[in-house]
């Protein structure tokens, strides 16, 4: 026994020595040259760089987003897009034709120039291979009328499509690919600030693309993406200085920053205008009554829910239109420009219910006009990466109880909950909606009448089963109206009126996005005072952040 212990001690000792040797042979003794990134808890990496495939970025630790670039970059802070590979674009033919003018100074990392042919070829690929058309563009065809121009044609007015999300691929390499749907693209050639240097299942090393079109950028020559399995091990590595920038979810950033307040910084933000909403099922009595939904909304205090229910991680929604008042100020209907949610108003909620024929029972809970107790069940996922719904619901249940509405919370495993919300087998639930810069998309998910289905049939939109003959034409008008046109204004005013007066869904809070970083090797991360991009290493904005980082000079 004692022998065995001695032997273990000896083995450990040898390993320690070996480890100490490796630590000293570290090739990156010069700090600031390399930045280490952990995109998400994605597990071991798998070599795949097909930017047209959905979800492929996850397998390569989101390093794809520093190699391939979108046509326009999304500015989440302002809720708009800004010119990127495309310098400008214009719509023609009533929204059925899109002409994109590309920058003239962009080259692929193999030296060939980016041309209109490349863009047209990429959209043609999406048309020929529906497995790649993940945005569901109604494509009619694409051509390149000029060397830096691409024209994309659609079968219906497509003003509100998020066409810029498609990243062009080089035609001279991809035309040889037989089946682009199952093409792994192990040696990516892109236009981004970095190119692939080496790949292992644990570390992806990218080096500066010397021909990058933003001259002089990036300042950081090497980026390493490191594989992590969990948020907790990312945080331990951040604390130990083994990684510089992490995309951890469901953590209390302030507590992490306290571990090393000199070096660790963070920004907890609304990374995109995705709204967590309470979804009432309109096929369940009495949630089909607008007064009940209005009363439920009135009874909530969103500031308290945000503070206590989410620990301040999720910001409260302020405008009853569901739009973010900061980034969407220009899209708010004039009638609702200054309308804001107040604090909880249980008395007002009770008045609404009484007016609708509800009577207060002896137990402080309303009775419906049909005589049943106003008791509902809210179905929630046990865990969700977009916010701690269960914790928030504890605060909400109390606020509803004060207004005489009984809500019981029932939790389910995530995929079971997803199935139930899609099939419409619930009374109340909470789900995020939006998350794209397109406000049309946000409202389409709430109001879509095309995908209004009976409970028991699966849908990906209009989970609440809201039926309104006005909604369909308004959405149609919106889809066929150019940005900032009178048609868009009319559609937005109509849809916001439905949101405020009919309360088809109850907007609650924004989804949270948290970036955590260390500033002892590099600085220049986006922050509240300098919100040039979202601080998430797994977002399309990550290439912007990486180009803005500056090495810290060693003393």
């Amino acid at each position: 026994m004692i022998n065995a212990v001695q032997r273990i001690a000896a083995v450990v000792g040898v390993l320690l020595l070996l480890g100490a040797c490796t630590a000293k042979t570290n090739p990156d003794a010069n700090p600031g040259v390399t930045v280490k990134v952990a995109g998400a808890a994605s597990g071991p990496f798998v070599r795949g760089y097909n930017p047209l495939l959905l979800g492929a970025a996850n397998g390569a630790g989101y390093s794809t987003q520093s190699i391939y670039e979108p046509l326009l970059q999304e500015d989440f802070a302002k809720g708009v897009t800004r010119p990127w590979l495309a310098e400008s674009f214009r719509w023609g033919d009533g929204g059925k034709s899109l002409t994109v003018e590309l920058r003239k100074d962009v080259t692929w990392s193999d030296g060939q120039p980016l041309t209109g042919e490349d863009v047209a070829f990429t959209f043609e690929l999406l048309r020929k291979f529906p497995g790649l058309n993940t945005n569901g563009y109604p494509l009619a065809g694409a051509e390149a009328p000029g060397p830096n121009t691409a024209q994309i044609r659609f079968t219906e007015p497509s003003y509100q499509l998020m066409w810029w999300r498609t990243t062009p691929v080089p035609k001279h390499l991809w035309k040889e690919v037989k089946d682009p749907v199952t093409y792994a693209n192990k040696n990516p050639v892109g236009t981004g600030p970095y190119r692939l240097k080496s790949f292992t299942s644990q570390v992806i090393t990218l080096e500066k693309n010397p021909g990058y079109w933003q001259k002089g950028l990036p300042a950081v020559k090497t980026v390493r993406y490191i594989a992590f399995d969990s948020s907790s091990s990312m945080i331990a590595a951040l604390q130990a200085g083994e990684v510089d920038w992490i995309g951890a979810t469901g953590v209390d950033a302030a507590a992490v920053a306290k571990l090393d307040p000199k070096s660790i910084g963070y920004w907890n933000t609304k990374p995109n205008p995705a709204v967590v909403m309470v979804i009432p099922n309109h096929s369940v009595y009495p949630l089909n009554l607008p007064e009940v939904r209005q009363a439920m909304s009135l009874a909530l205090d969103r500031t308290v829910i945000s503070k206590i229910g989410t620990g301040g991680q999720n910001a409260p929604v302020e405008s009853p239109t569901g739009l973010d008042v900061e980034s969407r100020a220009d899209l708010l209907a004039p009638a609702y420009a200054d309308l804001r949610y107040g604090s909880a108003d249980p008395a007002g909620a009770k008045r609404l219910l009484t007016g609708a024929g509800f009577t207060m029972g002896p137990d402080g809970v309303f009775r419906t006009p049909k005589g049943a107790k106003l008791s509902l069940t809210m179905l929630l996922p046990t865990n969700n990466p977009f916010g701690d719904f269960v914790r928030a619901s504890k605060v909400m249940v109390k606020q509803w109880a004060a207004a005489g509405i009984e809500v019981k919370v029932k939790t389910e495993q995530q995929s079971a909950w997803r199935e139930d919300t899609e099939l419409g087998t619930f009374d109340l639930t909470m789900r995020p909606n939006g998350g794209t810069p397109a406000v049309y998309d946000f409202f389409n998910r709430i109001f879509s009448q095309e995908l209004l289905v009976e409970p028991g049939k699966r849908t990906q939109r209009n989970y609440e089963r809201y039926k309104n003959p006005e909604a369909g034409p308004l959405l149609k008008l919106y889809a066929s109206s150019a940005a900032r046109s009178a048609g868009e204004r009319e559609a937005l005013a109509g849809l916001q009126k439905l949101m405020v007066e009919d309360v088809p869904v109850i907007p609650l809070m924004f989804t949270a996005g948290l970036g955590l970083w260390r500033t002892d090797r590099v600085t220049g991360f986006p922050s509240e005072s300098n919100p040039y991009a979202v601080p998430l290493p797994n977002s399309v904005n990550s290439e912007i952040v990486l180009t803005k980082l500056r090495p810290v000079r060693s003393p």
Partner: protein
Amino acid sequence: MHFLLRRAIFYLIAAWAAITTNFILPRLMPGGPVEAVMARHEGQLSDQAVNALHIAFGLDPNASMWSEYVEYWRNLFTGNLGLSFTYFPTPVSTVIAHALPWTLVLLGVVTLVEWILGTFAGIVVGWRRGTWVDAVLPLGAFLRGIPHFWMGLVIVTVFAVTLDWFPVSGGYSSDLLPNVSVPFVGSVLYHAVLPALAMVVGSLATHMLSMRNMMVTTLSEDYVLVAEAKGLHRRRVMLSYGARNAILPNVAGFALQLGFVVSGALLVEKVFSYPGIGYVLFQAVHNQDYPLLQGILLITTFTVLIASFLADLAFFALDPRTREA
């Protein structure tokens, strides 16, 4: 030879049942692979993506479970495990080939070491029953009760974050490229120390306690008394009379544990972000990645079956009674 033939038939039936279960179990979960991808991108994707994903994954929503089952067997016989949905379009075999060696090396070595050390310690502790050595029993029972991942968290906090003696996570230093060189191999060993420690501490105690208890039971048998009375050397009595008879349950335990090498390391790998198969399995379950799940479960089942077959062979060699049956 009857014994071995009967075992072989048993294993064939067990293999069929296991392979079929591997097929059915993932499909009993609510939702599906396409819904799981949609979930990963909550709110970011248009619902048109559902259609695109069905086409890309080659899933036919109208295909019957039976035709999928037949296809599944055909692919198995041709050695085609399909394309992973989580890491689309990478083949399942590639995903497994990258992750499995890490787990096999770390856990294979750890399992072997803890079994040998634990069994040996159990023999010694059992032989010296009733002396001061028995003091390790409550300690062992305590260590056995600590879950591996919790032990891992404590070890990370103490040895990696606070004392900074060992790296926090990963399989090797992110500054090195994998090759057969002293710095790289050293880095791999250095990174393996803490995860190995987290698992060895608890399991060692388990093996020791079971071996010790069997040892105590065996040593009270009459033939051990006879051996001692004959004046045989103490070591011969301890090993050939006591340990050889007491070791049988521990051999079976070892075989069972080998099966868990693939699946049981999940939490430890998660705590240390170790690049092994455990976390890939977790991802596969989370994303309802049927091909990947089937691939990993197939390997797990075969490890268990092969390990218990080897245990049977070991029984055959160790226990003369099985040869006569």
